[in-house]
């Protein structure tokens, strides 16, 4: 068995893995990137549409263009990486086991590990659509890979279930390929992806968007022959009598992404409700010295935010190695962050008391869209410690807050805080008057 040592091992070479590797290399620590695919870059390689880099580079790039800038830096900095290599296990002692077909089993002793394995797509089973199990059912990302990377068409006429970004982008992509997209069907009363994609991918191509509907049956014993869609009520229960049949030979599912958590779980890290690991404000998981960033932590809609988060993870891993690694520094306690009204989940899950003097970056998603809201943080006694106005919130856009608690008037005394998104009090009055 080959054994190596590296200060930091990074698992995954997507936007997250590359940005954190560059950060670490700048500090002159040794770092190794391990990637199971045959090239660096991750999911962005198959996202040949534009819309990447507006924040990071103030330019509109395609996925491959965006990631190439990071790949170039990795090459310039001579950061070592292994391709076609799958990490199969990580331990609490920060041993990383990986396999590839040239070296066999590889064991790497790291001081810190950065998890950057990305996410996976939810499948038909996860949403339990009844009916036959014919060929012709794909997740949108799978179809994207077939079309953009392998050069094959999975079908001729499509229904796309779910109006997530990948689904909408694929609706346009397939139309360009001369395929027919019969409809994008969404169970919610609104599009679940970004507004920009609704306009640029569906409306511009006259692709019908059918909201408050879902697929309730798949037809075809061998190959998909069509789907039945039904209208749903507010509780997402099917309304009997609303069924419509749509003929198609392919059903694409764009019904959500979940962090890739197999390794995280097996290593013994605790997971939070969103499927990613529980982390503190340093993006450190419940295993000391193991950090997480990018889609493995939480599903991001903008790659720019992934890169920024990954740079933070990289910096924190450096700080860990330079200060805490091998030293027993007592903790001053943790403050738990709880998702309150209209907050689906919140990262970080904990804040270290000793870090209250630093900037803490919160990221979260709301459960439902709202306008003219107030985002507030309360302690256990219901004291509002922080508040901020926002014009609108929608589930498809992650919200980011940067707060330095020591600079705030109210201090956190309690062991937990609640983050909530509520209608602005004054707006309530205004609207009452209108009514």
């Amino acid at each position, binding site marked *: 068995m080959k054994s190596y040592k590296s200060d930091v091992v990074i698992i995954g070479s997507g936007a997250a893995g590359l940005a954190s590797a560059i950060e670490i290399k700048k500090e002159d620590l040794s770092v190794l990137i391990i990637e199971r695919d045959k090239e660096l870059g991750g999911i962005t390689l198959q996202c040949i549409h534009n819309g990447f880099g507006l924040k990071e580079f103030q330019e509109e790039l395609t996925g491959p263009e965006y990631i190439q800038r990071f790949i170039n830096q990795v090459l310039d900095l001579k950061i070592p990486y292994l391709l076609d290599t*799958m990490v199969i296990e990580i331990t609490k002692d920060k041993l990383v086991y990986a396999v590839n077909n040239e070296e*066999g089993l590889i064991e790497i002793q790291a001081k810190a590990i950065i998890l950057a394995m990305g996410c996976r797509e939810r499948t038909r089973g996860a949403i339990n659509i009844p009916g036959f199990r014919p060929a012709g059912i794909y997740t949108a990302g799978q179809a994207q890979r077939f079309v953009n990377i392998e050069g*094959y068409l999975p079908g001729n006429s499509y229904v796309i279930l779910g109006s997530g970004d990948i689904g909408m982008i694929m609706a346009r992509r397939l139309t360009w390929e001369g395929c027919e997209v019969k409809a994008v069907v969404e169970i919610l009363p609104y599009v679940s992806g970004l507004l920009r994609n609704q306009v640029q991918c569906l409306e511009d191509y006259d692709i019908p968007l059918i909201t408050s509907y879902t697929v309730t*049956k798949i037809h075809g014993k061998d190959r998909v022959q069509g789907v039945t869609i039904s209208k749903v009520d507010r509780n997402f229960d099917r309304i009997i009598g609303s069924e419509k049949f749509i003929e198609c030979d392919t059903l694409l599912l764009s019904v959500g992404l979940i962090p890739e958590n197999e390794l995280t779980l097996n290593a013994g890290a605790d997971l939070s409700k969103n499927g990613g690991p529980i982390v503190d404000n340093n993006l450190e998981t419940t295993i000391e010295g193991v950090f997480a960033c990018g889609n493995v932590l939480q599903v991001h809609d903008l790659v720019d935010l992934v890169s920024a988060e990954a740079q933070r993870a990289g910096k924190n891993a450096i700080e860990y190695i330079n200060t805490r690694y091998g030293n027993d520094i007592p903790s001053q306690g943790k403050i738990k962050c709880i998702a309150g009204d209209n907050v689906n989940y919140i990262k970080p899950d904990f804040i270290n008391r000793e870090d209250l003097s630093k900037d803490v970056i919160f990221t979260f998603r709301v459960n439902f869209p709202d306008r003219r809201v107030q985002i507030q943080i309360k302690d256990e006694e219901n004291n509002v410690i922080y508040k901020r106005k926002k014009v609108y919130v929608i589930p498809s856009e992650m919200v980011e807050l940067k707060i330095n608690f020591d600079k705030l008037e109210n201090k956190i005394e309690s062991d937990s805080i609640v983050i909530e998104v509520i209608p602005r009090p004054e707006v309530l009055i205004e609207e009452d008057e209108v009514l």
Partner: protein
Amino acid sequence: MTTIFDVLIIGGGVTGCCIARTLSKYAINIAVLEKDADIASGTTKGNSGVVHAGYASSREYVRRNLCIRGNKLYTQANEELNFPFIRNGSFVVALEDKQIKYLEGERKRGIEDGISGLELILDKEKIRYMEPNLTDDVVGVLHAPTAGIVSPYELTFALAENAAMNGVSFFRNEKVKRISRQNYVFKVKTSSNEFKAHNIINAAGLYAAKISKMVGLDYFDIMPRKGEYILFDRNALHLNKILFPIPTKVSKGILVCPTIHGNTFVGPNAQNITDKKDIATTEAGLKEILDGGRMLVPNLPTRASIRNFAGLRAVPYNSISDKIGDFIIDNTDVYGFINVAGILSPGLTSCFAIAEKVEEFLKLLGLELKIKEDYNPIRPKPQRFKDFSKAELDEKIKEDPTWGRIICRCETIPEKEILDAIHAPVGARTVDGIKFRCRPGMGRCQGGFCRPRVIEILSRELYIPPEEVTKRGEYTSFLVGKTKDRFMEITEREELE
């Protein structure tokens, strides 16, 4: 085909393959015909995978005895064939005091009929210790320690592989259409060939009545009865025991059960239908099984479901005995034609006992059954990445680098296991064939990651273009063409001009 087979088995389900393997020790010439692109594509693919202890059905039914005997035969068969199987034991769960009497009766009858270890447990603490996920409402259970779980299709592949190793010929994509007879030789016409045989064994599952009618034997019918299932992610729930409710007249009820690969499933319901191809799950059915399952395990992890599926029981009506729902295993009036029909539950459990019975029939028919000298009952255990220690793994990859290329990340399946599945005797030819042999696509992502890679490997190994790789045979291809076909046409034309 000029060969005249001594025995021709119609149907490549667990019944047909088990008979083939059992007979393969004899110096006779055997073939199996299967209409689908792969064996184990019928009922054998969609069932509970429980090796029943044998207490449930009534004593007038042959299936009760065959089940009890079949259960016992699993031990040796498993040692020889190395398929995934364990005896983890089952509970029949009483939720009301008055049901205890029923359990006591079943225990008594079971012990009389030779089922070992049957035990009525009323100590709630002990029950919950043995199965912590069981509902608080439990008042008692009948524990059958000899009950077990098996992977029905992996059992069938093991049977077929061993049979093929011992000389049995398997023909897939051969649908039997007509049978005629001349001078004691059956002529069996399929969609594309003709086969000749002295003896025929009809193990055609749902279509057994149709095959029987081809030789003029019209004394039973097969009615499909659907059972639906939901399968949960491995990480979501882990059960020790197979959990049955008190059975009803039509079925053993909706169970909650671990699979041999560590997942949990709930199901099946029982719905009489008419279309033998209708393996669609239904909204009402999925709700019914979840409601049923919650009676036994209240906190079913509904959010962690990874797949739903259905299987069809071949429920027979025998017009001679006027019985519904018992196996029809007959040495018929048509000399040399044996019916093994209506093999509904517990057919999987009974397969080895059914094969013994067929063996006896063939002896009665005067077929000389002499054991071959070179008969090898051992089908080696397929090598699995997951079973290796780290050091072994390292060795393996050095010997063969395809051990080091992981194709399925959910189940950690390397390319080597997929190549083995393709190149095994009666190997995989379709994506489902690979999935059922070595599990890529069975995990929580259900093929999201590995499918393109599996298609690529099949295309390479079978020398066919990717568009011709199918899910499970004709009309089930995955890809409809290349993206740039149209574009290529245009540029070529331009160049010509």
